[in-house]
């Protein structure tokens, strides 16, 4: 689960990490008061959407830049009014862009130097890893590729948590030496790790982390991602979820325990099992089609879930064909066939449907489908099914 920058910075403050003074508002009426509250100097006006590249983005109105640094209150108001309620397109949003519903005003900080700091899971060691770099504001992947010597990586033993030697390694890696700064960085790293661990984050990223001419260390940006499997123990974090930032169909699917991801193709698929669902997308592409979604209905694949899955699939106007691919393991193909038949009768099938069943009592399951009177095309193997749906969707 993702959250907005302003929400992440509020959480940072709670964990003792310095951030510039700021105020987030959702309506234009509140702009003036918010601007006044962040001080009288330079102001940064920031669009809040769950996507990177905001500064270099363009609004569909033609207005350039989702993040602006301005000198006066009037300019801040002008920028905020140009952003709020409009759609921002960045390299991460796709061409449709995202509507900006929140504006975050912060005081502009004097920057001496920019750094990069993140904590995430290192999959190879199964431990949290702190990644720090002297190249702030840059894409970390690019830094890793071109100048790996500018990156310091420190693995944390999950049983002991962050220790002073970890923090020293980061500080020296970043070239800090002034006593006061070492102290500040120590506190920041402790707070950030505690936040990462206590709140079950998948990733926290500060890019850039800055030092000011006065010697202070501060998080100028904040990107946070939470482990969805751990949300049950963080009701406070769940309230920060912004459903407006998520695909409507994906939200609907999650209510029915369906794992659905919208894609931009025209052939929908309905599959049991994540690996098989991914492979079904792959094989559609292999035979010249384009998958419209990823959809794992889980091991059960009962009538209610399949019905809802069909509804979600058909609400995508791009869909021109559906491939159902179920391997009945423990569950009988008869049960699955009955589920598909009932679901297909519950919703109005407007596009060709190819069904491939395999596994337990497959002959009986196929017979049920054949006897159902439904306009569906049966398939024997996954390859056969993919070829059939690609062909049918072309017509």
């Amino acid at each position, binding site marked *: 689960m993702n959250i907005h920058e302003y929400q992440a910075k509020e959480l940072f403050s709670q964990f003792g990490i310095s951030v510039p003074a700021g105020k987030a508002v959702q309506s234009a009426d509140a702009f003036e008061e918010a601007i006044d509250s962040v001080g009288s100097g330079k102001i940064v006006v920031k669009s809040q959407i769950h996507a990177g590249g905001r500064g270099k983005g363009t609004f569909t109105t033609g207005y350039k830049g989702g993040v602006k640094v301005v000198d006066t209150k009037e300019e801040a108001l002008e920028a905020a009014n140009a952003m709020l309620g409009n759609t921002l397109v960045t390299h991460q949003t796709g061409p449709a862009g995202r509507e900006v519903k929140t504006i975050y005003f912060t005081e502009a900080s004097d920057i001496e130097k920019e750094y990069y700091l993140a904590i995430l899971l290192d999959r190879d060691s199964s431990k949290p890893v702190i990644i720090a770099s002297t190249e702030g504001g840059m894409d970390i992947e690019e830094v890793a590729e071109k100048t790996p010597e500018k990156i310091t990586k420190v693995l944390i033993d999950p049983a002991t948590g962050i220790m002073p030697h970890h923090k020293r390694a980061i500080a020296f890696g970043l070239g800090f030496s002034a006593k006061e700064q070492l102290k500040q960085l120590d506190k920041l790293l402790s707070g950030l790790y505690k936040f990462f661990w206590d709140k079950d984050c998948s990733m926290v990223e500060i890019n850039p982390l800055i030092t000011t001419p006065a010697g202070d260390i501060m998080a100028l940006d904040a990107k946070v991602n939470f482990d969805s499997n751990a949300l049950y*123990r963080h009701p406070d974090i769940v309230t920060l979820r912004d459903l407006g930032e998520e695909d409507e169909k994906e939200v609907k699917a999650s209510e029915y325990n369906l794992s659905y991801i919208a894609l931009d193709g025209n052939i929908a698929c309905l599959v049991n099992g994540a690996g098989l669902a991914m*492979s079904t997308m792959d094989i559609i592409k292999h035979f010249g089609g384009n998958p419209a979604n990823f959809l794992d209905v889980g091991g059960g694949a009962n009538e209610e879930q399949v019905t809802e899955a069909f509804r979600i699939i058909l609400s995508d106007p791009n869909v021109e064909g559906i491939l159902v691919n179920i391997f009945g393991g423990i569950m009988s193909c008869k049960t699955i066939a009955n589920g598909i038949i009932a679901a297909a009768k519950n919703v109005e099938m407007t596009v060709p449907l190819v069904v491939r069943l395999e596994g337990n009592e497959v002959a009986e399951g196929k017979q049920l489908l054949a006897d159902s009177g439904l306009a569906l095309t049966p398939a024997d193997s*996954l390859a056969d099914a993919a070829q059939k749906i690609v062909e049918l969707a072309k017509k």
Partner: protein
Amino acid sequence: MSILVGKDTRVVGQGITGKAGTLHALNNVAYGTNYVAAVTPGKGGSTWEDKCPVFNTVHDAVEKEGANTSVIFVPPPFAADSILEAIDAGIELVICITEGIPVRDMTLVKDALKKSKTRLIGPNCPGIMTPGQCNIGIMPGYIAQPGKVGVVSRSGTLTYEAVYQLTVRGHGQSTCVGIGGDPVNGTSHLDVVKLFNEDPETEAIILIGEIGGSAEEEAAAYIKEHVTKPCAAFIAGTTAPPGRRMGHAGAIVSGSSGSAETKIAALKDAGILVAPTPSEIASTLLEVYSK
């Protein structure tokens, strides 16, 4: 022979007195798997489905019934604790079926595993089966038959696809291992490949992977250096968009890492045949293995 589980495996089921646990564990018993105990805190002293005694702790199940393998069907908030209890009780092999365990919990489990002699399969996996001898977890037994091909996979249904394809072509399996779809798991592709390589009854290996992490690359490097048995592979997720978790918590392409292309290239570089589609996993292996 086979690997990890067989005729001598003595299973304790943690959380098998629940509805789903009972269903799958009874299927395992019907297959011939030896369930010697169940553990459900508070239900100690009762009997599970007329098959075996229920204990309050795994320690009791080990002490009184000689359990050496545990299968876990406990809900995600409590599953890590169940794994740690099994480790603490000295269980040799723990198979955790549970999907949805927080990563933070698993990093602590992983740490405890390193300090113990216990091996964990999973979590978020279909289990492990040595056809004709022992089936632990949720894999359908009828798709398999005893034989010489070892199968290791991060995906449940893709395991079934591969195993079934082998079986209908007359090739049985030595052991089928589902290592699970989580980013932090107990046993990797590499661990299982090593065991298959050392197992005299395994003559060929099928490795099924997916996007996320670099476990497949690690296994490929080992195979290139040390394995002479015929191998075939399949990688799911060529069309997966970067930055999205594809159903499995561990199936995510992060930046340039974990893509299907990288994995397929590493496997091919190691001389392993990679099936172009999931329909051709068995037939791809049979191009280089035909006993």
